[in-house]
C-alpha cells in the first residue's frame, strides 16, 4: 500500500536507448502521463493483478481470441494479450497524426483512381509504370472502372512508429482488409470498467462511434437507384483468425454477417439467402481477399467467394469496400513513392515521414542491401502479418548468406529498411511481476466515403511483449494497449 512506501512503478527502469513514451530519463513521468502514473502507484501489486485477471477472463468469455495456425496442428485459440497501462497521446500530437493520415489516404485514393484510368503519374514518371503493371494486385478488372463515389479505400489502417528522434514514421499502409479495430473498442470497454477513476481525471476521446461511422461511410457509396441500401459484412467464416472482428462489426452496425455461400448472383444482382427467400444486397464490406472474391474471375478453387460478383460490381449493382485492386497501393515497393504521390496529387508536403526504403530490384539499392544486411530489416513486398520479415542484427553470418541468396533469387520481392528503433512504453510483464519498457507501434483506422472522412481517435497500440522484440503482430506474440487521445 501507499503507506508502506511501495509503489508499483518505482522499479521501472526507463528504456534509455529508445524513446520512452511515459518517463523522462530521471524516472519522472511526462506531464501527460502524470495522472496515470499516480493512479497506478496507488494500487498494490495484488490489486493490479486482480484487475488484470478480471480483464483477461472477460476477454476470454467474450471470445476475443484469435487462432494461430501452424502446419500439422489444430488451430490454437488464444486471448489477444492486453496491457492495462494505456498509451496516451496529447491533443496536438494527435492532431498532426490525424492530418497526416488523412492526407495520405486522400492521395492514395487519387493515385488508385489515376493508375486505373489516365495513368498520368506513370506517364510523368513519378512512379515507375513497371512497378505497377507487374504487381499481382493490379487488377485488369478495375481498369477504366470507377467505383461508386470514386472511393477505393473506404477503410485504411496506417501503421506508425515513433523513432528515437521522437518523430512518427509511417511503417506501412494497409488498404485491403486491415484488422484490429474491434480490439480498440473492446480494450476501451475493459479499461473503462477497471480504471473508471482515471477516466474522471483524464478526458480521453471516445472510440465507440467507429461502427456507426463505418456504416455511414458504407451508405455514402451505395449503388445508383438504391434508396436505403442493404449493407452486409462478408467473412471467410468462423475459422478465420479475424472472425471475432467480423462478427463484432456486423453486430455493432446491426447488419448481417454473411459468408460467400450465403450469397448468389443472378442477372448481375447480388442476393442473400434468407429464411424467406432471396434478399438483394447493395453494399458489401468484405473481409475476403481479392483473389477469393469471385471464382469466375479469380481463383477458381475459392470456396469463400461468390460466382459472378465482379460482373455485378462492374455493372454498378453492388458496392465492394474496399474496392478490389487496392492492394497495388499498399505494396511495400510502392510505399517508398507515397511522399511523391502526396506531392503529385495534392501539391502538399507530406505531414508524416516515410522510413527510408531500399528496393532490391534497383541495382544501387541491392548492392547496399547485400553489403549492409546486418543493419537492415528485410521484408517481402507482398506479405502481411509480420510474416517473412528478417531483422539483420539478429542473424548469424550463415543466416545472412541464406538471406542474400533469397533476395538475389527474386529481387522484386524484397525491400529493406534501416532498423527503426520503436519507442518503448511501460508494460506489465506477468512473469516478472513488474513494469518494463516494451516496444510499441500504432495502427490508426481511417474511413473515406463520398464527401466524408473519419479517423478513429487513437487506434490500436500494439506492444511486443518479448523483451527486445520489434515485431508487434499478434501472430508473433504481440499484445495491445488502449490508446487515449486527450481532449
Amino acid at each position, binding site marked *: 500500500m501507499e503507506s508502506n512506501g511501495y509503489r508499483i512503478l518505482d522499479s521501472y527502469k526507463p528504456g534509455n536507448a529508445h524513446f520512452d513514451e511515459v518517463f523522462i530519463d530521471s524516472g519522472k513521468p511526462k506531464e501527460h502521463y502524470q495522472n496515470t502514473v499516480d493512479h497506478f502507484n496507488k494500487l498494490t501489486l495484488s490489486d493490479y493483478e486482480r484487475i488484470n485477471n478480471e480483464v483477461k477472463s472477460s476477454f476470454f*468469455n467474450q471470445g476475443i481470441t484469435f487462432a494461430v495456425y501452424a502446419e500439422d496442428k489444430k488451430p490454437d485459440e488464444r486471448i489477444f494479450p492486453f496491457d492495462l497501462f494505456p498509451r496516451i497521446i496529447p491533443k496536438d500530437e494527435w492532431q498532426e497524426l490525424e492530418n497526416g493520415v488523412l492526407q495520405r489516404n486522400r492521395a492514395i485514393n487519387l493515385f488508385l483512381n489515376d493508375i486505373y484510368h489516365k495513368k498520368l503519374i506513370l506517364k510523368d514518371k513519378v512512379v515507375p509504370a513497371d512497378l505497377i503493371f507487374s504487381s499481382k494486385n493490379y487488377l485488369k478488372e478495375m481498369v477504366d472502372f470507377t467505383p461508386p463515389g470514386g472511393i477505393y479505400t473506404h477503410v485504411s489502417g496506417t501503421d506508425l512508429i515513433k523513432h528515437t528522434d521522437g518523430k512518427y514514421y509511417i511503417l506501412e499502409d494497409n488498404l485491403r482488409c486491415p484488422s484490429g479495430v474491434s480490439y480498440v473498442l473492446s480494450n476501451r470497454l475493459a479499461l473503462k470498467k477497471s480504471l473508471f477513476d482515471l477516466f474522471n481525471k483524464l478526458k480521453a476521446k471516445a472510440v465507440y462511434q467507429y461502427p456507426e461511422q463505418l456504416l455511414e461511410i458504407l451508405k455514402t457509396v451505395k449503388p445508383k437507384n438504391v434508396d436505403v441500401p442493404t449493407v452486409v*459484412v462478408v467473412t471467410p*467464416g*468462423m475459422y478465420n483468425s479475424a472472425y471475432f472482428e467480423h462478427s463484432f462489426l*456486423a453486430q455493432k452496425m446491426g447488419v*448481417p*454477417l454473411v459468408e460467400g455461400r450465403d450469397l448468389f448472383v443472378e442477372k448481375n444482382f447480388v442476393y442473400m439467402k*434468407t*429464411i424467406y427467400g432471396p434478399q438483394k444486397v447493395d453494399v458489401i464490406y468484405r473481409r475476403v481477399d481479392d483473389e477469393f472474391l469471385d471464382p469466375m474471375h479469380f481463383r477458381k478453387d475459392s470456396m469463400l467467394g461468390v460466382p459472378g460478383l465482379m460482373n455485378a460490381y462492374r455493372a454498378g449493382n453492388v458496392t465492394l469496400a474496399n474496392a478490389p485492386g487496392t492492394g497495388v497501393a499498399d505494396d511495400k515497393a510502392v510505399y517508398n513513392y507515397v511522399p511523391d504521390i502526396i506531392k503529385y496529387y495534392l501539391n502538399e508536403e507530406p505531414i508524416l515521414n516515410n522510413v527510408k526504403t531500399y528496393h532490391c530490384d534497383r541495382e544501387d539499392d541491392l548492392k547496399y542491401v547485400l553489403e549492409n544486411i546486418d543493419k537492415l530489416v528485410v521484408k517481402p513486398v507482398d506479405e502481411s502479418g509480420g510474416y517473412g520479415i528478417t531483422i539483420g542484427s539478429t542473424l548469424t553470418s550463415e543466416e545472412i548468406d541464406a538471406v542474400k541468396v533469397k533476395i538475389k533469387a527474386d529481387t522484386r520481392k524484397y525491400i529493406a529498411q534501416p532498423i527503426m528503433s520503436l519507442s518503448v512504453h511501460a508494460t506489465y510483464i506477468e512473469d516478472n511481476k513488474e513494469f518494463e519498457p516494451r516496444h510499441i507501434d500504432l495502427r490508426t483506422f481511417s474511413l473515406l466515403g463520398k464527401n466524408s472522412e473519419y479517423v478513429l481517435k487513437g487506434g490500436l497500440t500494439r506492444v511486443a511483449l518479448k523483451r527486445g522484440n520489434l515485431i508487434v503482430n499478434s501472430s508473433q506474440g504481440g499484445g495491445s494497449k488502449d490508446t487515449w487521445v486527450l481532449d
Partner: protein
Amino acid sequence: MLSRVANNLYWMGRYIERAEHFARYSKVIYFSALDAPILKTYDRDFVQESMLYMAGIFDMESKTEKDVLFKIGLDAQNSNSIISNVSMARENAHGARSAISTELWEAINRYYHLVISYPVDTYLTTGFYEFTQMILDQTSIVRGKIYGTLLHEGEWAIILIGMYIERVVQVIRIINSKLNDVFKIEQAGHSVTEQSFEWTTLLKCVEAFDMNRKHYASIPDKNQVLEFLLLNQSCPRSISNSLSGIMRYEEKIRISEKRDSETIGFKIGKLQQKYQYLTIDDFKDNVYELLNYTQEKILEIGSEFEKKYLSY
C-alpha cells in the same frame, strides 16, 4: 435472417437441449441407483447399460464404470458425449455470432470453457455430480439469456423450435429407456411398490417429480406418470406441452401458406391436436406404439423444417 444463420441457431438449440437431457438423465440414474430398493437387479451394470442406451452407444467393449462415465461425459471423440454436444452448441452459436446478443454468446462461451476445462480426473473420481449439476445450471443460465436478451422474433423462435423438437425426441427416449428398465424388473417378479421407485426416477429424469406430486398428491404409478409426461399441458417437459411450443414458435416465423396438408404448420398442428384430445385409456396398452409414432412424426417435421427454412 440468413438461412445459414437460422440453421446455426436451430442446431444450437438442439445441442443445448440434448446436452442437458444427457446430463440430467445420467445424474439421476446414477445417484438414485445408489440406494435403490431392488439392489439385486439394480446393480452397476444395469445403471451403465441404461446410461449408454440413452446416449445411443451400443458398441462399447470395455465397460468399467470409469470408461462409461468418460464416454458419455468428457470423451471428445464420442460425438454423442456431453462435451461434444456443448462444443457443437458453441460452434453453432459462433457461426451465428452476429445474430445473437452478446449476453447470450458470452453465456454459451463461458459454459463451453467450463466444460472443456473440467479436469477429467476430478470428473471420474469425485466430480460426477458437480459436473452434471454444472451442465444443468449453465443450461438454465443460457436459457435465461435466450428469453431475456433476444428480441422475441425470428432468431429467438428458431432457437426455441430447435430446443422443443429436441425435447420431444429426448423425453421419448427417456420414457422408452425407463419402460425398458421396468420391463426387466417386472419380469423378475417385483412388486408394484418396488416399481413405483422406477416411476419416481423417471419423473426426476425430466425434473417433474415435484410437479407431479403437486398435481396428483399420490404415489406415482405407471399410468399416472405416463399421463403426466405425455398429456399434461402444464408440465414444461411433457410431450403435449413441447408440441404446443413447436407450434407456437413456428407460427412466429411462418409466412402465409396455402391451406395444404403437406405444410409444416399443418403437420405440427395435427400432431399437437392429437395429443390435446388423447386420454391415458387410449394408449395405456400401446405406449410403445404411440411413442414410436410420435418420434417418427417429430423427426419428419424436423427435417421438413430444415428443408423449408434452413437450407442454403
